[in-house]
């Protein structure tokens, strides 16, 4: 598998380690009323979809950046790669607007 790193270009997936669902970026608020349930769901439950999956990959043997990779879990085709930092910022920006 080749991951098209937004800054470094195409890199072999072997240079990366995998964390899992990209929703892990969206950490729950520890002060919310439902924090216990929310953290349980966040830490342990997964959508585990067939088909497109947004997931976190760490460029451990490279520039040590975190990426959000959109990959098809049935074909391993990668359709989109973003810096996780940018995704997190965009998320935060949309929260402010909301």
């Amino acid at each position: 598998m080749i991951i098209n790193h937004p800054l470094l270009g195409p890199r072999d997936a072997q240079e990366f380690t995998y964390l899992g669902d990209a929703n892990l970026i969206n950490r729950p608020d520890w002060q919310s009323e439902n924090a216990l349930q929310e953290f349980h769901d966040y830490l342990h439950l997964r959508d585990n979809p067939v088909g497109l999956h947004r997931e976190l990959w760490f460029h451990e043997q490279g520039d040590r950046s975190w990426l959000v990779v959109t990959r098809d879990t049935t074909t391993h085709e990668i359709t989109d790669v973003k810096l996780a930092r940018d995704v997190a910022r965009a998320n935060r920006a949309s929260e402010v607007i909301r």
Partner: protein
Amino acid sequence: MRYSGFRLFKEALTGHKGWAGQWRDPEPQDAYDYLIIGGGGHGLATAYYLAKEFGGARIAVLEKGWIGGGNVGRNTTIIRSNYLLDGNEPFYEFSLKLWENLEQDLNYNAMVSQRGILNLIHTDAQRDAARRRGNAMILNGSDAELLDVAGVRAMYPFLNFDNARFPIKGGLLHRRGGTVRHDAVAWGYARGADRRGVDIIQNCEVTGFRIEGGKVLGVETSRGYIGAVKVGVSVAGSSGRVMAKAGMRLPIESHVLQAFVSEGLKPIIPGVITYGAGHFYCSQSDKGGLVFGGDIDGYNSYAQRGNLPVVEDVVESGMSLIPALGRARLLRSWGGIMDMSMDGSPLIDKTHIDGLYFNGGWCYGGFKATPAAGYCFAHLLKTDRPHETAKAYRLDRFMTGHMIDEKGQGAQPNLH
């Protein structure tokens, strides 16, 4: 039809014309007392024990493809009872006891072979851990022996004892562990269940659940609606996608695990060897092929095939332990999808939906569990109470903090 030496002799003399099919091919009925989704080892064993141990009822197994086409036919066939933790070891010991009596019980040759499993030790810390594990096993009624280097050398002189990074310092030998002909497990349970009246319905995919007022009424399938009083889901690597149809999210990710077989060789490896430091394990099939495997590919996958980097990794590990492996040709490799649970341990439990039960999260270790998982799931379906040995396999254990982290690596699939 019962199988026996006499029967075989008679058929041999009459041109083998008397063998009948091993199970029927019934049309699905309108409704059942128990519907088991998934015709793998676990689903078929569940139906068998439900029919046999827990009294007569209308039971059906629904399989989307053909029975035995899933992980039960893709695994590396190792059975063992060498777990460490209290939540696990009694369950796997119960399973091994059922394996030991399986062929008599089913009247079916599943080639259960207790050829012994040797876990290699490479460091002093590993020896301490092995001693502790061995003691835990013995306390739970299993067997374990600690071997020194000479003991390992006597069994397997061809191993690479002088590996600079992982020198072999001994091994933990579990003599009652071994291998089983995996397809025959599915077939044997299917035949046994069928003979007790269970409908085994193949090419019947469950596409949805009918749930009203928090109670399951039946399932939608590719062959129409089928009503049920109780529904047990046992679909191995498809757990996430099937339970999503009931609106549930699980503590599970689907990952692929690969296995490999070499060309047929003369007998060289009598038992099973595991090499934890290099993530490699190997046994030899009765046909002579070396059967081996290693780690999961390590990212979510529903593709029933593996990727080359892991092939390289496994073969590299294998060569570092058994240099002679390099002279054997690799015949084939394949992958299976497993539900990796968050702590690496399985789930057998009622769901919050009345009448809907779940068995899954077996990671890469569910084959050895087949008889006990079937028995315990049947027990739960019938009595609504967990079986004595499966009490720890609850869905809420991540909420209550009762994780079963057998590998001691933490609660995340990419760690185990």
